[in-house]
């Protein structure tokens, strides 16, 4: 396992991954409690790619039943911080 990341680092990485999936989107003005799909016009393929990227970046398992927990920025940060501890 890598050295634990700070919350800011995690946030930056999640935003970077989103930026790769939706390159035209302005992720800096993302509202943390509103779903990515609504803000970034992600479809199910984009969301699957996002989950795959989180899995690869943070070395975590994300069962399909947990997908809803990863649909907002705050949700992601909560899940990732729980996975680290």
């Amino acid at each position, binding site marked *: 396992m890598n050295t634990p990341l700070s919350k800011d680092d995690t946030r930056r990485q999640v935003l970077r991954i989103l930026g790769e999936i*939706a*390159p*035209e989107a302005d992720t800096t003005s993302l509202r943390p409690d509103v779903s990515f799909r609504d803000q970034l*016009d992600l*479809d*199910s*393929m984009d969301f*699957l*790619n996002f*989950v*795959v990227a989180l*899995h690869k970046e943070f070395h975590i*398992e*994300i*069962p*399909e*039943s947990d997908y809803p927990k990863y649909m907002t920025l705050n949700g992601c940060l909560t899940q990732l911080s729980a996975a680290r501890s």
Partner: protein
Amino acid sequence: MAEFLMPTLGADMTDGTLVQWKKKEGDRIAKGETIAEVDTEKAAIDVESHTTGIIERLITRPGDKVPVGTVMAIIREEGGPTTSVASPRAVAAPPSPPPPAPRTESAAVAPSQAGRLRISPAAKKLAAERGIDASTLQGTGPEGAITLDDIDRATTATTDIAKPVGAADRQARMRQTIAAAMARSKREIPHYYLSTTIDMGRAITWLKDSNEQRPVTERLLYGVLLIKAVALALRRVPELNALWKDGEAHRSERIHIGTAISLRQGGLVAPALHDADRLSLSELMQNFQDLVKRARAGSLRSSELSDPTITVTSLGEQGVETVFGVIYPPQVALVGFGKVVERPWVADGLVVPRPVLMASLSADHRVTDGHRGGLFLAEIDRLLQEPQSL
């Protein structure tokens, strides 16, 4: 000898611009390998060769815009004669370079003499300064030698290409292409429309169970089940898997499902998932992911754009329940899927909530009638009730 022509990469494409050759004269090319990158109204496309052989001559220059059907290169087919052909239809084609070594059975390993470049020392120096690969150029000097002028022209072409096409410009051109294809469709094709509601309960449960067993990198989306069901149903009603050409329908042996993919900047492409009926769901998912990725990155292959035999469009993600699709000419059918929604459903005499999906068919009435169209939708429904056998 085979001619490599500017391909049609979609209905109503009239011309294309050669961005760059991916091969040099004298290179060997295999069928299906990329020979050129061509810029169309929609995207820059990697165009594949239909022939295996040796590239005898590259006629079109990078930066040139030529009409569909223009001879862009000459390929000497494997096993074909080695004599040079007369310059075919090419206007002011430069003299041929020395003919490549005659092909024998062992020609593949024999170094070709054709690679030797005729270029003046001054032109060579200029090419090096400007970072131009002179071996990709057509010389206009004596015996096809590359001159200073040739390097100048190549520099201009490269500069033009390097200038990125503005996103707004690309979008406007794509809109025009879609407009032309859809106007032609509605002008020429007498559409009829059918729809049916499909109980997706079994398919969704099966998918959930299957995805639980799969690592995240191998999970399936339900859209892949729909594509596979359409592909298999076409085996039962093959007249919908056809292209309309010269006043009649030509059935396609192979099933290439055009998959409508919306682009983030706006616009739409519908490249083919080749042989969708023969691929496993996992293979289909992988190819689908790859196709969406490349469609959005603007790196589709020519065959993917030119050979879909039917189109599937899913608009459920946008909350749409029913699609009334417009057929993409010269295809003769389009299948539309809406959103999976929970609805009261009667099963075994009881009203129960079930996830259901509206499937629609837009078909060309010159080719099929409602009866066959109805059988096709019923077959898709039947297949989706047995997801394990898809």
